[in-house]
């Protein structure tokens, strides 16, 4: 079967994630949107693996997942810290650095 539908889906997921990054204020949610984009990548990987017929794509999906997990850890740590100092996880509140 053709991978095209999966690719379309992954493109949709990617765009939703990207738009989400732009429109959401809560750091956690922004971060979730980024994870969504990564998973869109994963979907593309596996569907292409299916298409070209080798395992590389699936392995790549594994790696991306692991990296995403590591990113979650670091990200949560940073966001929690900044939440505790500022009492807010809104990315718009953190704008001391500008111009």
């Amino acid at each position, binding site marked *: 079967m053709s991978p095209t539908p999966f690719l379309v889906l992954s493109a949709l997921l990617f765009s939703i994630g990207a738009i989400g990054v732009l429109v959401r204020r809560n750091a956690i949610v922004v971060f979730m949107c*980024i994870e969504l984009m990564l998973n869109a990548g994963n979907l593309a990987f596996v569907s292409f693996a299916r298409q070209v017929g080798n395992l590389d794509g699936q392995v790549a999906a594994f790696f991306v997942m692991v990296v995403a997990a590591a990113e979650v850890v670091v990200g949560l740590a940073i966001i929690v810290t900044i939440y505790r100092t500022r009492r807010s996880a809104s990315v718009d509140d953190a704008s001391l*650095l500008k111009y």
Partner: protein
Amino acid sequence: MTLLAAPAFQAPNLAYGRLSPLLIIFGVALVGVVVEAFAPRELRYQIQSLLALAGLVVAFISDVLVASSSPFSSSAGTGAFGGIEAQGAIAVDGPAMFVWGILLVMTLVSVLLVAERRLEGGLTAFAGQASALPGTEAEREASARGIEHTEVFPLVMFAVGGMMLFASANDFLTMFVGLEVFSLPLYLLCGLARRRRLISQEAAMKYFLLGAFSSAIFVYGIAMVYGFAGSFTFADVDNAISSRVGADGLLLLGMGLMGVGLLFKVSAAPFHSWTPDVYQGAPTAITAFMSACTKLAAFAALLRVFYVALGGARWDWQPVVWIVAIITMAVGSVIAITQTDIKRLLAYSTIAHTGFLLTAFAGAYQGTIVLTNQVSSLQAVLFYLVAYGFSSIGAFAVVTMVRDSSGEATHLSRWAGLGKESPVVAGAMALFLLSFAGIPLTSGFTSKWAVFTAAWEGGAWPLVIVAVVMSLVAAFFYIRIIVLMFFSDPVGEGPTVVLPSMLTSAVVTVGAAVTILLGVVPQPVLELARHAGEFVR
């Protein structure tokens, strides 16, 4: 599922010797984590710093050994030597080993900055306890008990390891892993400043969110290219392009998105916006480390991807890179003029330098067309990054020494009359600024010269003209700071230059020495860069 039935397994043969520099660094980093876990608190600082320095030195030695023992590979084209290791995952070739060596040295220098303790009165410049809230009892207690985050050292080691992997990766997957391995520690390090916790944490968050965003885009680009070529290895992608198989659209899409991921790391406009904020917010030692090492690693990777894997599609990406280069130079040089914070100003200057480097990259003067008596784009870029890296580390080292009651005095107005306060420090800073401005007899001039000639020979002479104009604009604000330091009277009680320990002094000395040496006798390093040759395909 027969389609996906994998071939029979044969154990890969890993040339551990060739990969030793990488393995040593990662090993040391892991040991550092173990030390954190088991060593008593009061010993950690000494153990960690010595461990890190020792690891870097050993890794550097092994890198030199590997380089000196590498045969010229038959497969490669012009003067390339070394080979592909680890089942085609890592290219241990001339440029890679050159970048490794430079990365290790520059990290060594940065680690000296990180380990500086006298400026903060016996403690490092990093938060005693990142989890304690700023200005609370917990924090005061932490700093009173002399608690320090010695995790900083393992984090730096992981970062440099990731950079080495990133710069030598020979397939996209390895490259992505390397990217993350050096990014994640940096995100954390940015948030660990002891003073000005709020902006430090803000910088960490911005860097993290934007970095993650860019790497997501990067991953999607990889997926597209994989869909186009059916493989992650650069060589295969190159073949796919030259043999014109596969859907071209996927290639263009992937090329674009991957380019974004890489251009973000080298902070090229319009993907530069994180740079000023992060450079200003991060602990200055880390800023120095990033400005020198991240740039080097990222540029090495950028050139490798676009010259080796996507070289066949050069006619597609070259014009785009031209545009990006022009925008980057303009943004960096112009915005820097109205900056009032020294760290921020240096951040914009680093953006401008990225633009100058991109001119050589866009020239793509490489391979067989290089005349025997000239440097190729790759070699010019490497040389430039060596020169820039040391000047930049030195400049930030000076920034750590100019302080007032609230820590580093980074506002430019506090720098007025620094020349009277301490001629030597101000003189060193002036030297670095002149080098950034590309005044002759400093490394900045020779490196700019190398880059511009490479670009010109590559046919990008309009870019060179723009670059020359832009460097005039840039020169103006560098000179402005020099005048500010030497020829205007201090406001208020004026800045104070805190006497640092041996470590920071050593860093400034090294920076100044390299800046002058590469300006006066650049030949040895140029020769080294030339000897590094081209990428192995």
